[in-house]
């Protein structure tokens, strides 16, 4: 029996949580494959097999450098974004503590940055946290007011991985440069959606992940501007100029660079397609669902991110209902988190707990098709209505 196209789409699993994980692009897998068996060398070896691996490593470095407008020797390969951010914050702070002990981050950083900052406090550093406006955008005037002559590092994520708000990175970079303070940005949420340019934005340290550009997991990059110094966190055989020891993960590194290469060529058209999906979802859901709101900035937001909140209901119920219909999404609800705390990002925008609980995050990506967006637009209004019919808060509000 041949299913017609409509039936095929009805059965298709719809994935709208690209922010959490992305499939590796098959073209990336093709480039990686030879490096598992045929070209398996260790770049530290001096023989021919080792030379092939060295060549792959250095070509990959060039491709990543090009992707962010950096020089080859400013790229350090790591095991992923979390390691890169640990190196940038802990490595830089410890190395430069003679200059000062003060670090500034924002309220809407990825949880990893908040936890690294807490660790730095335990080491004796002082951390200031800059508030954001109602859209989750860092207020640069407030950031400036927090800088002291002891400030050595500013870390503000390029864009929020939750609500998709893009930060005024160039403005912060300029301020940091003027004040002679190192500027780190976790660019994971933005990479592949916004052109990254460390020169234009005056970025000194930058966290990148491979999976977020459809490369394999387990690889990342720390961009570090020439002339800056960090203490390595992993000590060993002195790979990556001693900054990150351990035999290089050549298949992974080749994969990440292939992903960056593809992204460099395809990003602009891909982003236009995502914007179409995003704008359609935002338009329909805000129109079709009463008492629904958009979280994050109306225009300064990632092309693939639509983040809603619905009065009177809780996000996990929406997530489970969509799961039943074969649709994968994320929520800002505490009930799906490890700590049972609601999203710190939503709270920072000025929401109270009960509002943060009613949030739903849709992030699209390379392998979505038009019908995926139609599926969620059609189903969300019904799901919200059903959960509201159970909710004491919503009925109370309408009374």
């Amino acid at each position, binding site marked *: 029996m041949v299913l017609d196209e409509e039936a095929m789409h009805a059965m298709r699993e719809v994935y709208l949580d690209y922010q959490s994980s992305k499939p590796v692009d098959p073209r990336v897998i093709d480039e990686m494959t030879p490096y598992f068996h045929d070209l398996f060398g260790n770049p530290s070896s001096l023989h021919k097999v080792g030379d092939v691996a060295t060549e792959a490593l250095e070509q990959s470095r060039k491709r990543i450098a090009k992707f962010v407008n950096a020089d080859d020797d400013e790229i350090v390969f790591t095991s992923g974004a979390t390691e890169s951010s640990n190196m940038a914050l802990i490595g830089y702070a410890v190395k430069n503590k003679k200059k000062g002990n003060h670090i500034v981050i924002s309220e809407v950083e990825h949880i990893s940055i908040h936890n690294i900052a807490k660790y730095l406090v335990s080491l004796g550093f002082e951390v200031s946290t800059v508030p954001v406006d109602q859209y989750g955008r860092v207020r640069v005037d407030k950031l400036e007011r927090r800088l002291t002559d002891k400030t050595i590092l500013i870390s503000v994520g390029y864009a929020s991985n939750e609500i998709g708000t893009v930060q005024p990175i160039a403005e912060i970079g300029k301020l940091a440069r003027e004040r002679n303070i190192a500027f780190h940005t976790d660019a994971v949420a933005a990479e592949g959606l916004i052109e990254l340019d460390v020169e234009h934005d005056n970025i000194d340290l930058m966290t990148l992940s491979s999976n977020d550009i459809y490369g394999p997991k387990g690889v990342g990059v720390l961009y570090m501007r020439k002339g800056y110094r960090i203490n390595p966190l992993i000590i060993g055989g002195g790979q990556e100029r001693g900054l990150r020891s351990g035999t290089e993960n050549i298949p992974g590194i080749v994969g990440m660079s292939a992903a960056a290469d593809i992204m460099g060529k395809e990003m602009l058209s891909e982003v236009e397609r995502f914007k179409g999906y995003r704008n359609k979802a935002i338009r329909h859901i805000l129109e079709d669902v009463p008492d629904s709101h958009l979280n994050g900035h109306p225009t300064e937001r990632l092309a693939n991110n639509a983040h809603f909140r619905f009065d009177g209901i809780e996000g996990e119920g929406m997530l489970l209902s969509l799961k039943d219909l074969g649709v994968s999404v994320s929520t800002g609800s505490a*009930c*799906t988190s490890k700590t*049972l705390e609601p999203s710190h990002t939503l709270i920072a925008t000025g929401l*109270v707990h009960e509002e943060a609980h009613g949030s739903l995050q849709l992030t699209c990506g390379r392998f979505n098709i038009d019908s995926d967006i139609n599926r969620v637009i059609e189903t969300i209004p019904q799901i919200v209505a059903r959960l509201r019919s159970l909710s004491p808060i919503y009925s109370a509000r309408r009374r």
Partner: protein
Amino acid sequence: MKSTQYSKKVLDHFRNPRNVGTLEGDDVAVGKVGNPVCGDLMEVFIKVKDDRIVDAKFKTFGCGSAIATSSMTTELVKGMTLDQAMQVTRENVASELEGLPPIKMHCSNLAADALHEAIKKYRAKMQGEEAPEEGAEAAPAECAIGKDEYLGKGVYLAVTNPEEFKEKRVLVVHTGDKSIETAIQLTENSGRVVLLTPDMEIETSKKLRDDLDASGVKVLYQSKLLEIRGQDEVEKVLVHNLNEDEKYELFVDAVVLME
């Protein structure tokens, strides 16, 4: 175990909850419990005849397990005597649902507590006692720490120029009808307006009440402003939720404290 890894039975009660709704009448009592940290609020209604629960209904705001445990609790207690129903525990409810993820056992498994409260309320009612009054007396707004320090730096005693509040998140402390009118007026310019009141309901004219409902002002009931915080200007406030006796920070750009 993932927090959303639910048993088949939990998912069934989430997808097809039993006994959704409310009950009314002299033989009805309602128990309300909630934990805003986890984001759950439950109301369990019982209808009693000859000391036996003849009907039970619920309304729940909460995650999947909150809805499922409410549904199961109302299902379990129908036909029980009040004494029997008092013996129903969270653990009973969880085991009837073939278990809950450990992290959900205490936060979203509150329906048994709501049931017990409903029974207590019913018994009190039968003995002619008024249910204990919830909520607290209105506390004067000037108690807030930082009011004087931030005056002119985000704290306003009156709103003369609404333009000043453009794109700002404003907290208005409920001090009477004038403050409600101000809150409604501010929604025209401001990014967000929160009205804070220590009471359970806002007592005002029907018209103002309707205008408030239609305005988009976020009303926080049973809440008191404790402290204004920020570096050089208002950046956040410390709010006391009187119902839960919990304190939390709310990010705002301005505070309106009218006399």
